[in-house]
């Protein structure tokens, strides 16, 4: 992976009549990385991928691939390929004919095509006998692999994915996520993936861009976005989170209603007197014994206990009806939790301050 931008978007705007779907997107995607664009529906992520593959025209701005400007280039001339949400496998062709479709368009000789199809079937763990199978006879997971094989047969500079796993059941999705990541390693290609599922994004991606209302909110690694979100939207989008409205005092100390803080805490990087959001993830909130010391302490009562499987989630009613979520591993489960009065504690190093909360 190199650090220079491979796919470069500058000021990309897309308007549909009076509606602006994308507001001046700037984005750099590096060669060989697995880049995921995440956002709720209507955030503009599908519009963006359609611009990148050439299904729609940009209203303003430029897209460059390496040093070539591609935003005016028709889709059939761009060296990119997309795996569609519906997969778009041709129902009137066999598995083999589907995979070799891009090769046939390039007029490669049949023997060579057949050989390449066999390689790709091997790569995606599909039996070679599938060459003559009908698409309608293949399972959902097999169809995913066929769509991938077809896109790889095209040998694109960048492979785009438009939520191809969204229609599958949970188990199969998990398997294919890992296979896709593995495939990314083995092929060394640049993957640009679009999804509304954060879990999917976190499992597979090198870097993630979070989109909201046609703008990119944050671009970073999954870990960075999870630990240090730039806004309330990103924090809440990236899973369960506790957010407290706090004020940074003139002495630099952080204070919030119902929150007891240790005296020497200071808010780094935030101006004195400003409002902020204090974020702490549920897994970092501890049930504290009366003698235990934490940077932040608050009192509450357990309202509900949810069994998530390997983890247990508690919903706690804190001061001023504030709801706090706490998660524990099953082995650290609290006995007879519901209705119990609890003392909660967490340390400053596990928190993150979001400005202008």
């Amino acid at each position, binding site marked *: 992976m190199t650090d220079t931008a491979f796919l470069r978007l500058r000021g990309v705007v897309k308007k549909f009549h009076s509606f602006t779907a994308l507001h001046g997107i700037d984005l750099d995607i590096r060669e060989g990385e697995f880049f995921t664009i995440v956002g709720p529906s209507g955030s503009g992520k599908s519009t963006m991928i359609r611009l990148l593959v050439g299904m729609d025209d940009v209203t303003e701005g430029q897209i460059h691939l390496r040093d070539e400007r591609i935003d005016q280039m028709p*889709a*059939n*001339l761009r060296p990119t390929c997309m795996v569609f949400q519906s997969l778009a496998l*041709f129902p009137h062709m066999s598995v083999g004919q589907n995979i070799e479709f*891009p090769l046939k368009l390039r007029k490669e000789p049949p023997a060579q095509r057949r050989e390449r199809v066999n390689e790709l079937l091997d790569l995606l763990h599909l039996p070679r006998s599938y060459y*003559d199978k009908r698409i309608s006879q293949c399972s959902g997971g097999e169809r995913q692999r066929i769509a991938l094989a077809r896109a790889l047969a095209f040998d694109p500079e960048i492979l785009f994915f438009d939520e191809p796993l969204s229609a599958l059941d949970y188990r199969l999705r998990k398997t294919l996520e890992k296979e896709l990541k593995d495939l990314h390693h083995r092929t060394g290609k640049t993957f640009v993936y679009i999804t509304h599922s954060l879990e999917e994004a976190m499992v597979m991606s090198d870097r993630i861009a979070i989109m909201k209302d046609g703008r990119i909110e944050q671009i970073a690694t999954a870990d960075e976005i999870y630990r240090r979100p730039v806004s309330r939207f990103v924090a809440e989008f990236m899973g369960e989170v506790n957010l407290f409205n706090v004020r940074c005092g003139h002495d630099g100390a952080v204070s919030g209603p119902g929150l007891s803080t240790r005296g020497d805490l200071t808010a780094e990087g935030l101006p004195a007197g400003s409002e902020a959001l204090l974020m702490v993830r549920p897994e970092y909130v501890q049930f504290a014994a009366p003698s235990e010391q934490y940077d932040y302490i608050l009192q509450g009562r357990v309202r509900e206990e949810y069994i998530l499987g390997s983890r247990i989630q508690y919903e706690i009613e804190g001061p001023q009806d504030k709801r706090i979520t706490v998660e524990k591993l099953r082995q650290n489960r609290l006995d007879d939790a519901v209705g119990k009065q609890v003392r909660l504690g967490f340390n400053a190093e596990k928190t993150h301050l979001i400005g202008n909360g």
Partner: protein
Amino acid sequence: MPASRSTRIVLFVYGLLIIALLYLPLVSVGFASVSRARYLSFPIRKYSTKWYTSALESSTVTDLFWTSLTVAAIVTVVSVVIAFFGALAFARYNWRYRTTFQKLILLPIFFPQTVLGLALLMWFNSLGIIPTWKTAVVAHLVWIAPIATLIVAIRAYSFDPALEEAARDMGANTGTILRLITLPLLLPGLVSAGLFAFLLSWGNFPLSLFTTGADSTLPEWLYAKMVSGYSPLVPTLGIMSVAGSFVIIMVALAVAWLMRANRESKAVQN
């Protein structure tokens, strides 16, 4: 839930009655065509195929047959072409006047055919065109092309627009997409539209009556003979006409069956 014995018997009898209701009239025409007597009366005293022989020998019948066939064949080909592009405009592409187009194109189907026939005749007259079988082709098209379009549009609605986008994404230009993706996917719809077009034109009477002028199609001739100068040639030609339609349907079914069998055997071989 499996039906009880009595339910099954009732359903069977009901089905039989429906079939009888539909086909008995046709059977009586069949009997009339093989009766030696000039007028049908039961029981038939003597069977004969002489009316079939004389039908096959008659040059009038040959002319009628060719006129009907020419009209139906041209209507079929033109309808299928119109239906293909019409269906794409109807179902696949979003354009400004699409909903208006969708409504207007269906309107001729709901017109009573006699009214449509009369209107077309008056229109041809005012244009100074003398009605022949060629004007009948135009008249048939006004009524049949929308039906064919509707049939293909149903098929076009059912296929994912992403298929064409995927082909383009992989480097296909518009012509290649049409040839390798759109046409093959619409083919079943085009075949059924073609069959419908042929059969509807072949059996059409009201439009032909108004617009063929001096020429005559089979259904027109049958009607004229019924009105004046009945002979058993009428039921004979009727049966031959039905047989012709039947053969066409059978050929179409056989072709579809062969294509499927061929595909499956290919899949089994590998």
